[in-house]
């Protein structure tokens, strides 16, 4: 089994085999391809609608309705929104917060999961239930207590407060997934390392982490995207405009009784781009994915 493991860890050169197999495409394979492409297309329809409205003038939108295609390219909405909310700064804040949370939460998940999955400490299920509470408690219940606590320690209206809170909240999923994965970690590998004289710390960083690295990148993507789209806690804790995130800044366009549909569409596309880029960058690592079972 160690053999499979090493093969997975280093990118397997599968292209040759893939080509050999591609010769045997039957008509049914094409049917499936067409069906799945159609399905993916349907999934994208709402995005087309968002794009349409992002490119319309408010007049076009009001007179022709939201579903008609735009007459031409109109990027005024994007430009106006960018200036109105100092969007460059907002983007930077979001990247900073989501990036820090992604990295820190992965780190925290690894440490937790090492104790739970590899260490198999007593009562680990109950510890897991406890740590999972970071996700089970509804966020609205946390807002008032966290507000008073953060005021106490002087972190109210700072990006740091949001980073800390989401590091804990997101790490719940990481802890759960990784400890499920690590509880199936091949014991012989650990034994071998131990015989070589490796301590617990070395085993973690040199044996365990390299093996689950693809899983870690999946977590990194999820945490980044989730934190990016969080709304309630950033809205309550990032009061100053200079601290605002993308999702909070979008709220400016949702007025008391009116909304600005064209600008909202443009702005949401703008706010969506970084996450899509992030996702595409990690596509490759995602493809290698969670290697829990390579170890079985």
């Amino acid at each position, binding site marked *: 089994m160690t053999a499979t493991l090493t093969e997975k860890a280093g990118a397997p050169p*599968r292209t040759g085999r*893939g080509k050999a*197999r*591609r010769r045997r*495409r039957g008509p049914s*394979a094409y049917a499936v*391809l067409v069906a*799945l492409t159609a399905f*993916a297309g349907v999934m*994208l*329809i709402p*995005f087309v609608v*968002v794009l349409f409205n992002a490119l319309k003038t408010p007049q076009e939108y009001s007179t022709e309705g939201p*579903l008609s295609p735009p007459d031409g390219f109109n990027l005024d909405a994007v430009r106006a929104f960018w200036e109105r909310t100092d969007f460059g700064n907002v983007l930077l804040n979001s990247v900073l917060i989501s990036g820090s949370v992604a990295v820190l939460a992965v780190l*925290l998940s690894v440490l937790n999961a090492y*104790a739970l999955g590899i*260490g*198999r*400490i*007593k009562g680990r*299920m109950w510890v897991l*239930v406890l*740590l*999972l*509470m*970071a*996700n*089970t*408690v*509804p966020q609205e*219940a*946390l*807002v*008032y207590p966290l507000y*008073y*606590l953060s005021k106490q320690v002087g972190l109210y209206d700072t990006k740091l407060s949001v980073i800390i809170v989401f590091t*804990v*909240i997101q*790490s719940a999923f990481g802890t759960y997934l990784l400890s*499920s994965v690590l509880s*199936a970690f091949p014991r012989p590998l650990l034994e071998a390392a131990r015989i070589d004289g490796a301590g*617990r710390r070395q085993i973690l960083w040199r044996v365990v982490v390299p093996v689950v690295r693809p899983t870690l990148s*999946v977590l990194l993507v999820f945490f980044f*995207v989730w934190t*990016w789209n969080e*709304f309630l806690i950033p809205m309550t804790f990032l009061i100053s405009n200079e601290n605002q995130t993308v999702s909070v800044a*979008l709220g400016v366009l949702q007025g008391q009784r009116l909304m600005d*549909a064209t600008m909202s569409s443009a702005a*949401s596309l703008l*706010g*969506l781009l970084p996450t*899509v880029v992030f996702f*595409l960058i990690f*596509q490759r690592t*995602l*493809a*290698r*994915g969670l290697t*829990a079972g*390579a170890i079985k």
Partner: protein
Amino acid sequence: MTAQGRGRSREQWGYLLYLLPGLLLFTAVIGVPFLMNIGTSFTEWTGVGTPSWIGLGNYRELVKDEQFWASFGHNALIILGMAVIPTMIGLVLAAALTDLIGRHFGPRTASVLRACVYLPQVLPIVIAGVVWSWLLAPEDGAVNALLGKLGLGSLAHDWLGDPATALWSVIGVMVWIQIGFPLVIFMSGLQRVDPSLYEAAEIDGATWGRRFWHITVPQIRPEIFVVLLWTTIAALKAFAQIFVLTKGGPGGATNVPSYYSWVNFFEKSDVGYGSAIATVLTLVIIALTVVFLRMQGRDLEEAPR
């Protein structure tokens, strides 16, 4: 036996060290706030000033709150829309993309398709709500227009306005939002399945369905558990998707419990009652988590290694 046991317990203390940062942070960010939340659930409080103690008053009110308990019924359907259906579709899609598309047309095609399906996860929920209410609009919405073009005009409907279809329409949108999550996790899980397993099965003449049932599903059992529990918790806490589409309407037909705590916290400034609802909801979810983790533990122990 005892010596070994003692060695094992010393061993355990070493690992406990790794849990320390997690537990400390958890205590500060979740533990203490949750206890504070339980505390305020025994009070009447507007969020500012001194709360006044009313003992079990909020809970007594909650037990009598018919609408609150009725809305738990909608949750059962929402679990269907956010957890069960996406998991099933995700599983089939993941298997099809990996087993058929990936092997016959190359992994690049598969990952482009996966990216398309994942994309809804990235769209801010507020915008998703606005766009879907355009698409589902009764007069000139795209869904009804499409039905008309297909000659099915008689099926056109006020999707979000008729109590009979509103919840189902919301569930449809939730499925759209949600499938990307299980798909990505399942596809990465499937990467560790040895391709020769599929090849051998194909040569033996196993149909796609049989390969799916006998190879795919057993291999990614841990992922299925993780995804199911996670999406079920999300479904129990679901609120944003409903809020942006129907605000719980028409006439409460799509109401959910977490909506109550939201309204009480932020619309009515009745923080005490909101805390009580949140506490009950949390306890329900924790109970569910425990049952689920027990099942998972037993199932994975039994699974052949």
